[in-house]
């Protein structure tokens, strides 16, 4: 009797905890709330002396709660509080017309265009390299070390050289930034696609041989479709890297526009709140880009019979 009533009561009690929405977003939400709480504590701790010194300099009497309030809306805090960043973020997005030089939308678009162009160039180059490596052992041996070396030089050191050299060739603005971005993002694609192109089962390759398929047919009907999962995995890595590349490329050029320019200006003038909201913008941007790729991936997977 008791045991059966317990068994009946259990699902009702667990209903909220097992609701699909709670199950899916509960953990994420908890994590975010915890982070925000930690952030606020850190903001108070880090800005405390800054605010206290301010009061003492101005020789105004203050209480602990004055300092506490001060740490939450300092003009140039060491660590801005989350609501300050959010305020600045929404302000610089909705507070100006999208193409005004003070609008974060404008700066994001500038960086986005370099990112996308760099991504397309890098992806194309990466796939082309992978094709060459897969089809020729000589190329594999001669190219692979250089490809790996190319990624061992810090891009921050290379970027100014690129800008100067390309500038001397008459290339300015979007293209040099895109090239730096491509330089970074071709790598995961080349490596991933070499793996993808060599992923078919030996039996499948032998079958193609028994049908005396041409190398081109083996590529299009076997190697390429087999590489698709690897392609999407690499693309997701590459798109974030190309965003980073585009931002890094904006730093040494002293670019007037772009998320990189905003970061640079923010750090020059100690505008930490602006700095952080530019960071948020780049995070939102890369989240959006990855989501688009994930969406395309889901569509492609469905048409290729993924279970």
């Amino acid at each position: 009797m008791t045991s059966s009533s317990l068994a009946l009561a259990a699902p009702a009690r667990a209903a909220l905890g097992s609701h699909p929405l709670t199950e899916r977003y509960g953990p994420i939400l908890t994590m975010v709330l915890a982070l925000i709480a930690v952030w606020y504590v850190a903001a108070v701790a880090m800005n405390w002396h800054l605010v206290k010194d301010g009061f003492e300099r101005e020789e105004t009497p203050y209480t602990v709660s004055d300092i506490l309030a001060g740490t939450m809306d300092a003009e140039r805090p060491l660590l801005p509080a989350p609501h300050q960043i959010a305020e600045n973020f929404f302000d610089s997005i909705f507070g100006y017309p999208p193409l005004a030089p003070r609008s974060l939308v404008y700066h994001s678009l500038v960086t986005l265009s370099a990112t996308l162009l760099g991504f397309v160039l890098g992806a194309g180059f990466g796939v082309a390299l992978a094709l060459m490596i897969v089809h020729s052992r000589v190329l594999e041996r001669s190219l692979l070390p250089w490809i790996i070396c190319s990624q061992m030089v810090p891009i921050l050191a290379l970027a100014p050289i690129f800008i100067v050299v390309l500038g001397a060739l008459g290339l300015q603005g979007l293209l040099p930034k895109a090239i730096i971005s491509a330089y970074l993002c071709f790598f995961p694609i080349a490596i991933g696609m070499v793996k993808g192109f060599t992923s078919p089962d030996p039996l499948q390759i032998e079958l193609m041989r028994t049908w005396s398929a041409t190398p081109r047919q083996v590529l299009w009907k076997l190697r390429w479709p087999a590489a698709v999962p690897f392609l999407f995995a690499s693309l997701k890595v590459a798109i974030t890297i190309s965003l980073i590349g585009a931002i890094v490329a904006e730093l040494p050029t002293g670019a007037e526009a772009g998320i990189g320019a905003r970061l640079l200006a923010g750090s020059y003038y100690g505008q930490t709140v602006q700095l952080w909201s530019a960071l948020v913008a780049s995070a939102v941007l890369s989240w959006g880009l990855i989501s688009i790729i994930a969406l395309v991936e889901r569509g492609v997977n469905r048409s290729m019979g993924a279970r």
Partner: protein
Amino acid sequence: MVDAQNISLTFETADGKVDALSNVGLQVAEGEFVSFIGPSGCGKTTMLRVIADLQQPTSGTLLVNGMSAEAARLARSYGYVFQAPALFPWRTIEKNLKLPLEIMGFSEAEQQQRAAHYLSLVNLTGFERKFPWQLSGGMQQRVSIARALSFDPALLLMDEPFGALDEIVRDHLNEQLLQLWRTTGKTVVFVTHSIPEAVFLSTRIVVMSPRPGRIIDIIDSGFPPDRSLEIRETPEFLKIAQRVRTGLRAGHSYDE
């Protein structure tokens, strides 16, 4: 259809030379169903791969369909069925069947018509739009047989096609394969390590032995073409099976 004389094949391995095939000679006439049987390492699969030009013999002469093995492969003279179905997972069953036809440049209408015909031949009509993972292992292997037949090669080479399937499915597919062979009139070269399977299916059984891989007996088996699984209980069947078993035992070295 297949004329092999003094075929030898030696592998170079880290432990020295391995004689995978030693002086193998065999003639397979058109319309025959010939099985290679023997323990692992006896070279039966290697012999099949040599016929298919997937491996090249060290010495000996080989004619497939009146030409060299390579020319026969380039002329698409044979269909090959592996132990695993090796279907392309991103293609539907119908598109898997069409794959060799696409490669060989058949017209769209011809591809459609052949895919439908060969799917029905292996009793899989209605599964056109399914993906391989939605089919059982036995069904997948039937698709791979249909795929090997789809471009109508004169010769069918089968490497333990039912080796990974359970006994009941295997019996069922043996009957289906026999019927397929009877209706299509193909020449089949079949590799197996199952004595009942070899005796039931074949017109001739080639018993092989390892180290070096060689033929130790060739047994004719003349059952009527429309035989059913019940003949496996008859004295004639058991007599041939016994002879195969004796051959296998004789070829087996004692150190195992």
